[in-house]
């Protein structure tokens, strides 16, 4: 369970997060949605201790962010940031191998190599394992970063807009994989998504943010309504119900 209490954050003098109180239950897939600039990335990076907390508390399971040692947290929580630029020239297998670092701290063993193979297999990257990152497509690259987070073998997985620049097939593949991680491996997956339809299709729960606050949360069918689209996203798009779940008609 991720528990956030009384969280405030300012960037460049402007408030970005205001008084966030949020509990993300253990297990399942939670999607974080909201218009651009709502503070989704900031919230995610605070949970993943990528930025220092200014005010408030966040705990991930029994670990309080800011108190738990970085290397201990790295075995509990993995994060795939929004920008996946790496200046080092890496092969896919090497990148995924870094996911094992919190466990071996520089001395990979047989178990670590087996885990990397499993991660590559699961994300269908085995054939590409010796390719360099700049020699694969955008979708394959995103998958490699997701595989790296998976290889980290943590209970919690945070992903910031992993579907960026992916075509529909690649996006659906990746979301199915995330779904599998929640269902089969019992992981707690939190994904920032900008396409509401992907969120309703794959997530158990939605958390909607607007201007640094939580605007709504709950099951997709409860949350995604015409009113929400109008009030949070400022658009008059309509919501239809298709196969028992809400679908935004764009």
């Amino acid at each position, binding site marked *: 369970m991720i528990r956030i209490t009384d969280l405030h954050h300012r960037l460049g003098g402007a408030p970005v997060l205001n008084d966030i109180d949020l509990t993300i239950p253990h297990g399942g897939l939670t999607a974080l949605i909201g218009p651009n600039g709502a503070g989704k990335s900031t919230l995610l990076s605070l949970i993943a201790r990528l930025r220092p907390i200014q005010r408030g508390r966040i705990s991930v399971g029994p670990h309080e962010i800011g108190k738990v040692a970085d290397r201990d947290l790295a075995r509990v929580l993995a994060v795939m940031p929004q920008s996946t630029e790496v*200046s080092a020239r890496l092969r896919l297998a090497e990148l995924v191998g870094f996911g094992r670092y919190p466990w071996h701290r520089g001395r990979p063993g047989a178990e670590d190599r087996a885990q990397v193979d499993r991660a590559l297999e699961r994300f269908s990257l085995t054939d590409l394992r010796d390719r360099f990152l700049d020699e694969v497509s955008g979708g394959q690259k995103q998958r490699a970063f997701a595989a790296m987070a998976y290889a980290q073998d943590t209970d919690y997985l945070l992903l910031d807009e992993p579907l960026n620049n992916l075509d529909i097939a690649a996006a659906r593949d990746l979301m199915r994989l995330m779904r599998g991680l929640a269902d089969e491996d019992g992981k707690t997956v939190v994904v920032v998504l900008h396409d509401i339809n992907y969120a309703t299709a794959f997530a158990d729960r939605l958390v909607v943010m607007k201007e640094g606050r939580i605007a709504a949360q709950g099951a997709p069918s409860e949350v995604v309504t015409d009113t929400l689209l109008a009030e949070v996203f400022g658009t008059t798009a309509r919501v239809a119900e298709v196969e028992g779940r809400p679908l935004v008609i764009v």
Partner: protein
Amino acid sequence: MAALLAVCAAGYMLWSAKAPWSFLLPYRATKLAALLLVGVALSVATVLFQTVTANRILTPSLMGFDALYVFVLTLLVHMLGATGYAAIPPGLLFAANLGAMAGLGLLLFAGLMRLAGGDMIRLVLSGIVLGLLIRSMTEFLQRLIDPSEFQTVQSMSFARFTQIDPLLLALSATAILAALAAAWSLRTRLDVLSLGDTAATGLGEPPARLRRQALVVICILVAAATALVGPLSSGGFGPSSFFGLIVTAFAHIVTPTHRHAVLIPSAALVGGLVLVGGQFIMERLFALATPLTVVIELIGGAVFLVLLLKRRAA
């Protein structure tokens, strides 16, 4: 590469004897040791520095690390006076210099990197300006010191490749070897840092602390090497700002990997090779009087431009 280095070293030791061997061998051995130490120290320092700053075109010398060393030295002379300075036991003096350099270097460059905030061009420009600033402050301080006193101090402070004080060599060697061991122990953590700050944090390797540790190692390597041969900026024959650049660019070609377990030894070998081989060719084969520095500067300047332009185009 190791074999090539051994050949160069042997050639340097044994080629063309114009003096009795009993004189020549120890003389050349000292010089060879100094060349190797300086080559390896500056190369490894550059590899670390490039990882810490996340780019391939910066070197510690380019950012004024060696200038900082002279500044610290001059400051000491200024405060103590030449006689007071000369009275300090050399070992203590050396340690104090390294300590001051490491502290100041950490302060300045960690601050600079924070200010530049990941903007490479800003970091390069402000680093070069900082280097200039340190150099002119040093010159200013040197003017305040009595000229004749200053000269004696200068001749004491920097040995040259041609006349290396065995004590200084021993001190530098100790410092450099210790710093190299520290660099080696950071190797896997530096690999993680080369993924970028966010990824490194996510993997449980917070960059700030690692950067500080690496900067201390870099400062010690550069300071010890500069102490041994003197910085270019004050007329020393030490390798120039571009030396580290040539070495790392070449090391990345020979061993194209992100792994510091490979890059560190590879750059060390290339560095030793460039200095020893270069000196051997210049001194023995061509009997040229041109200092190696000039050649390195020339080639290095070209490499710098190529790397900069390639970056721009990419």
